[in-house]
């Protein structure tokens, strides 16, 4: 595997300014590894860190932009329409399945 991990270097120079959130890699809440790839690393990181922010929308489609839900609806087309009206050019749309401890999921 060619994914490299950088060793922590000693601080020799003044610490650079913190990078903007958009350039930060996403992290999984459970395994702590980074997935710094994708158009939506900011959203993925936020969703993994703050699942409680999405829980009010169980059973609905949500459009997430940055670190907020910009539209939600039981109807996907409506959620996308609302997001576009609010200035989102390419909506990142998810369906939030209602939790049921007695259900296991398969692909289809």
């Amino acid at each position: 595997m060619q994914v490299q991990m950088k060793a922590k270097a000693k601080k020799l120079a003044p610490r650079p300014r913190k990078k903007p959130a958009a350039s930060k890699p996403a992290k999984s809440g459970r395994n702590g590894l980074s997935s710094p790839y994708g158009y939506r690393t900011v959203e993925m990181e936020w969703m993994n860190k703050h699942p409680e922010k999405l829980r009010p929308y169980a059973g609905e489609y949500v459009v997430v932009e940055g670190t907020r839900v910009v539209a939600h609806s039981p109807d996907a087309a409506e959620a996308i329409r609302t997001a576009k009206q609010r200035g989102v050019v390419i909506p990142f749309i998810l369906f939030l399945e209602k939790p049921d401890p007695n259900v296991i999921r398969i692909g289809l």
Partner: protein
Amino acid sequence: MATTVTYTRSFSYSIDSFSGEPFPGLEVRVSRPDDAGNAVDLIAHLDTGAVRSVFDGSRIVSALGIDLMAGREISIGSIIGFALTARIHRLELSHPDLGSFTLDAAISTVPIRRNLLGRDFFQHLQIGFREFHHTFLITAAP
């Protein structure tokens, strides 16, 4: 015979917001090949059991301006037999680190809960799963 595969990308599993359960989901941008201006971003489950990739029609048909019923009709079979009908449409999938892929994917005619990336997608990439580590690995070569 030992086989060595060199993977160039490592992805953490996505986390379900409710159960906290990790799942192998890849975030992709989907558009029509003839209209890259209209696109949606989705998370799709990597599904080695799916022959073809399947997308939730309710999420992409109106957003991409697809004439759903103009596509070839197919039935999708699950472990219980017939599951739903879908229509085949050519879609462009893109990922900033993996590239762009054109697939004749199935688009559901009814809302479905998950999008699936199937073996038609895996023909373009090599994917390895490390389930214990909740990680999958990809190299952008067939």
